[in-house]
Structure formats: structure tokens, C-alpha cells
């Protein structure tokens, strides 16, 4: 598959060099790439789902390793794996339901049963074996279940059944790929429209004469506020500038262009101003399984101030940002340190860098983290494209989008290989 390899390498390069801005763009491109990978995968006669999963996992691990801090990549990979498992399961249950019906109606006409030719019990057993089994102790200890299973199933059927089975399997394999690709297309569509769905809920939360505080810049927040403005709600916005990237300046410019009353304040003034604010609305980089938020730096300080003054702290996040992992030491493990030149000018401070203590280590360290972790108890509400949720509910949404088998994507190498 030279074509997809080139695409994959190109995307890996972009991820490593941090060329893609924003989790929505990253998620969309990841999904499109995985769609190409799926359409290029060769499907064997049996265990198609495992083949698909294998090829998606192989690419997915490399993508995640390229940028481990961008959690949207891992989320989309796991979503696609979940889609494959679900489609496979629904096809098998449909096939088995079809078989049961045709078994009951043996006397009836077979012409309308073209899609589900009558098969013997052995074929039913083979079909159920080829679907993915839930993890049991045996499957966990097996390293490569696919190749071992292939001769097993093919030996179980007789020749005549083999022919009808293979005809059925090839149509099933085409159907599986087709269904998976359709579902991935839906996923891409969902990722693209998540901001509109979130913005639709703006009117429920913003009343008249409100004062809203935000920090830095988030396109989701921008659309949210503009949707409320369009529905004729009157409110004013305090935007904290969000050093050292100063994205708050950008957001303030956008808001005034659309006619919203905006006040730009410094980050240091957030505690001073928050007593006069009705609500804090911010975007997130990622939402973890415990309801904690990985957010742009400075938001933990804002969340603490909001809690002190009993101001609701609302986080807007599309469902592609929901990560099934629990955060362990997120300030260090899920953080990126940016260049110190954003804080200090090297030219001015070059003389300070010459002084060394006895061991020769530099005396001056500059720390410039990108993200902050906000614990779930400081968040009042999550607004996602599926509606509003409490932080304690986020772990349930994981069951909708992800399968338990996919949470750890790195495979152990087998002792024999």
C-alpha cells in the first residue's frame, strides 16, 4: 500500500513538528487518514474485523507516538476501532438473525432470501467464531489469534457449505468495509459539526445582562457567544489575554468585530474582576475520563478563583476531545514546554546565563508550560455536542464511544517472535 504509506508518513511528520493547530483539525485529519488505511486494507476470507483492527492499530500506534500530548489522535484511533467492532457485531447478529429466520421458513420461497442463503449449523458456529470474542483468559494470553484461527474455521465446513460460505463471506467482507467506512464518514461529519451543536445550547445558559469571563482564545467559545448574540441576548465579555501566547487579543478582536461589548484584561486581574462576573466559559484541549480537563495554561488559576467566588465554570468540548484515559500526574506527563524566548529575550539576559554555581549548572531556568490540569471538582458543567453533563458523568460517555479492548494500544511482543 505505497499510497497510504506516503500519506501516513506525511501525517506523522506534521504531527511530530506540531504543524497542525487545534484538536478538531487533528481529529479530522486522523479520521480521514484511517479511512484511507481501511479502504486499502486487504480483507482475508475470515476474521475480516481482526484484519481491519490490526492494520488500524499498526498505524494508530505510530500516530500516537508522534504526538503523545495531542490526545485527539488517540481518541479518534480508538473511536475507529470501536466502530469496526460494532459494525462487525451488528453484521453478525444480522446474519444470525437472517439465518434463524430462514431456518424457520424452510418451506418458503428462497427468492427474497438472496442475501441470507440457508446455511447449516456448522456455518453459524463458524460465523460466531469469526466475530471478535470478548476478552477471556485464553484470548489475553494468545498473541496472534488471527492466523491460528484461520485454518480452524476453514476446516470445519464441508465443500458445499464452503462455497456458499465463501460467497457469503466475500459479500460480508465487502459489507463490513462499506459499513465501517460509512461510519467513519459519519464520525468525520460529527467532528466537523460539533461546534454548531454546542453553539445551539448557548441560549439556554446565557440570559440578559450577563457578564462572561474567558481566557485565551477558543473557536468553540467564539461560536458559542456569537450564537447567543444572534438570539438577541445582551451580555458583555471579559477576555483575559492568556500570556505568553496572548491569544486573548485575537478573541477580543473577533468579538468586537461581531459587535459584542468586550473588555480586555490582564491575567493578573482575573481574581480582581471575577467577583463581578456571572459565568466563566472556556474551551478545553482534552477531557479525561475522570472529568478532569487539560486546558490552556492559566485556567486552573481561573477555576480556583471561580470556585472561591461561587461563579459557575463551564467547559465547552466536542466529543472528539473525550479521552478514555485517567490522568496520572498530568502537569508533567501530558504537558509540553514551549520556548523560553516567549518569556525572556535571550539578548537581554545572555549575561545572566554565564554565571554558574559550583557544579557548573546554569543559574537561570525558564519554565513555559502549554497546558494546565483542572480537577473535576472545580468544573460546574461540560457542554458537549450531545448536551450538558456533570463532570462525574463523563466516564459513562466513554462506553458509548470506546471499547475496553482498545484502551491500551501498545501490543506486547510475543516470546516466540
Amino acid at each position, binding site marked *: 500500500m505505497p499510497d497510504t504509506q506516503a500519506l501516513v508518513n506525511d501525517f506523522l511528520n506534521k504531527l511530530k513538528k506540531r504543524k497542525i493547530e487545534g484538536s478538531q483539525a487533528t481529529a479530522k485529519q486522523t479520521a480521514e487518514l484511517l479511512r484511507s488505511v481501511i479502504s486499502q486494507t486487504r480483507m482475508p476470507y475470515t476474521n475480516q474485523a481482526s484484519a481491519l483492527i490490526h492494520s488500524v492499530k499498526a498505524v494508530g500506534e505510530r500516530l500516537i507516538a508522534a504526538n503523545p500530548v495531542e490526545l485527539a489522535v488517540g481518541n479518534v484511533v480508538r473511536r475507529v476501532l470501536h466502530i469496526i467492532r460494532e459494525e462487525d457485531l451488528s453484521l453478525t447478529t444480522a446474519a444470525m438473525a437472517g439465518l434463524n429466520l430462514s431456518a424457520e421458513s424452510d418451506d418458503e420461497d428462497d427468492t427474497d432470501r438472496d442475501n441470507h442463503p440457508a446455511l447449516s449449523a456448522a456455518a453459524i458456529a463458524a460465523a460466531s467464531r469469526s466475530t471478535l470474542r470478548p476478552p477471556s483468559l485464553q484470548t489475553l494470553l494468545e498473541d496472534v489469534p488471527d492466523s491460528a484461527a484461520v485454518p480452524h474455521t476453514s476446516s470445519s465446513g464441508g465443500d458445499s457449505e464452503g462455497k456458499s460460505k465463501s460467497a457469503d463471506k466475500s459479500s460480508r467482507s465487502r459489507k463490513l468495509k462499506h459499513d465501517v467506512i460509512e461510519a467513519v464518514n459519519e464520525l468525520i461529519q460529527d467532528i466537523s459539526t460539533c461546534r454548531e451543536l454546542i453553539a445551539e445550547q448557548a441560549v439556554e445558559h446565557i440570559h440578559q445582562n450577563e457578564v462572561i469571563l474567558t481566557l485565551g482564545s477558543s473557536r468553540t467559545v467564539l461560536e458559542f457567544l456569537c450564537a447567543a448574540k444572534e438570539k438577541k441576548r445582551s451580555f458583555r465579555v471579559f477576555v483575559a489575554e492568556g500570556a505568553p501566547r496572548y491569544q486573548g487579543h485575537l478573541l477580543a478582536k473577533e468579538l*468586537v468585530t461581531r459587535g459584542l*461589548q468586550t473588555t480586555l484584561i490582564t491575567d*493578573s*486581574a482575573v481574581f480582581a474582576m471575577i467577583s463581578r462576573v456571572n459565568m466563566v466559559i472556556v474551551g478545553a484541549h482534552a477531557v479525561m475520563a475522570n472529568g478532569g480537563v487539560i486546558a490552556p*495554561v*492559566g485556567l486552573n*488559576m481561573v477555576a480556583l478563583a471561580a470556585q472561591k467566588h461561587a461563579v459557575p465554570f463551564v467547559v465547552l468540548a466536542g466529543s472528539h476531545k473525550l479521552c478514555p484515559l485517567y490522568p496520572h500526574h498530568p502537569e508533567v506527563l501530558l*504537558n509540553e514546554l514551549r520556548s523560553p524566548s516567549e*518569556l525572556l529575550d535571550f539578548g537581554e539576559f545572555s549575561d545572566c546565563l554565564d554565571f554558574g554555581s559550583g557544579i557548573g549548572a546554569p543559574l537561570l531556568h525558564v519554565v513555559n508550560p502549554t497546558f494546565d490540569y483542572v480537577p473535576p471538582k472545580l468544573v460546574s458543567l461540560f457542554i458537549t455536542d450531545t448536551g450538558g453533563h456533570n463532570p462525574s458523568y463523563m466516564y459513562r460517555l466513554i462506553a458509548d464511544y470506546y471499547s475496553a479492548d482498545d484502551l491500551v494500544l501498545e501490543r506486547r511482543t510475543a516470546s516466540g517472535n
Partner: protein
Amino acid sequence: MNRVGLQYLAGDLSGGNARCIAMLQAFQEAIRDYSTPPEKTLTRDLTSKIGGFVSFLIECRPLSMSMGNAIRFLKSRIARLPLTLSESEAKTTLCSDIDRFINEKIVLADKVILRHAAAKIRDGDVLLTYGSSCVVEMILLYAHELGKQFRVVVVDSHPMLEGQKLLRRLVVKGLSCIYTQLNAISYVMHEVTRVFLGASSIFSNGTVYSMVGTASVAMVAHAFRVPVLVCCEAYKFHERVQLDSICFNELGDPDAISKVPGRVDVNFLDNLTDKQKENLELLNLKYDATPSDYISVIVTDYGMIPPTSVPVIVREYRKEYLLI
């Protein structure tokens, strides 16, 4: 007097102590050059002259609390001058009073604060400070001279960026420093063992009035259970009470927010249209009020006191300098 006023305006002179000392020395010069016009009493005329100077200074930049207290001290001294004194004797008395005030209330007070605070620094500590406070800088350098091994985290904020000046002075003396900006305090606070803050004034309900952003630092330190020590001379205490930062504050230059020095890639707010300018307001607050529950202890020249003892000091010791 003009020179001092212009220095305030230009922002060259900043920090409560520096401004107060400069103002008092300017008053000393003005008093030495003063001569009573005929048919006027020294006390009333001098008081009105001082009032004139004060208005000029307010035009340049609103007074800080410490300056307000110093002016009240001076006016009360003038009012208590015995009428039997000749003009030259009155002038020398006033000048020596001003010298004593500066010496006792600022210079010696700082020395006492140094000794108290340095006792609270242990080897292996990581100390955090915000902005540039002259008292905290003295404490850090003093503790370093005593031979204590510690690291300093200097937290800074836009637009003043005062922390960079402090950083340079500390690194030159050989202290190991970490520099960061205010948004990253949750990231660094994990390692910090003590927070030292300066204050412009402390009110009678224990609220600390200081550079904007101090309240955020104290709040995050409190959330991470790190002790917060505020170092402040007693002459800066005031009998006002204040609950939040909005009721009484000083506004700085709004354009200072839209400019980021040294970084051309983030000048988003250049070239705004009129319509945009009409909806956009730039707010540059200079001070904020830190609630007393975030403060562990206040280090003053009267010792280390909890925030609840501030009104006691204001009441008991305020009479003292009026009776010098």
C-alpha cells in the same frame, strides 16, 4: 519637587518605599527653601504649601497608601509645632523629624523584617515571589549571604514585567532562579515550599493591597497548602477596610496591555477600525486586594503577626509616632 513628580509620571520610581522616601526628601528640600511670608503663620502657610505639592504629585500619579500615611504624619508634626519656635528652629525640627521617620519607619524597620523573615528560610527551600518587592529582594539576598541554600521562583506578569529586573539582580548575586509567568503558577507550585510577597498596604480587616496578581498567587498557594508570608513595614498599615479590588484601585495606561514588548508576532491589536474600537475596552488595573484567609503570617517590624492583628497595631501604635 518637579523632578520627583516627573519621575513618578515616567514610572522610573516605583515601589511603595522608594516613592515615599523620594517624596519625603523632596519635602525636606522644600521646607529648607521655604520662608514664611509676612503676616502669615508658619504652620498654616506651610500646611497649605504642602497641600499644593501633594496635589501636584497626585496629578502625576495617584498616591500610594504609604505616601498618604507619611503626609498625614508630616501635617500632624507641623500642626504640633510650638508657637514659640523661630522659623529656622521650626524648619530644622521638621527636617530632623522627617529624617527620623525615614530612619525608624523604613530603614530600621526593614532590618528587623530581614532578621525575622530570614529565620523562616531553611536549607533546601524553594521560595516563590511575585513581581519585584524591595523588601523581599533584601530578604533573599540577606539569606543568601547567611549561607542558606535555596532556590527562588520569580513569577512575573504582563504588562509591568517587573520580575525581570528582580531576576537580573538575583542571578548576578549568584542565586539559582526559575523564571515564569503568572499563568504557570499551578505548574510550579508543586515544588514551592514558601511564598514571600510584598505589599503596598494592609487594611484593618487583614486584606493585603498590593500589585495586581498577588491575590491569584496567594490563592493558588493556599490551594496547594503552601505558607504565604507577607513582608510589610508597619507604617503602611491603614485603617480603611476593603472587601474587593474594584471599589478602590488605580488604573494604568490601557495601551500598555495591547503592546507586548519584544514580540512582533503577537501584535494582534494594531490597526483596529473605529467600529472595533467602539466595542473594545482595555482595562489595566494596578492593584488588587488579597483576602486575609490566604495569608499565613505578616512579617513587620513589630514582629510576625497574623492578619487579624493588623487593626490592633493600627490602633495602639499609630498614636506612638504622633507623639514623637
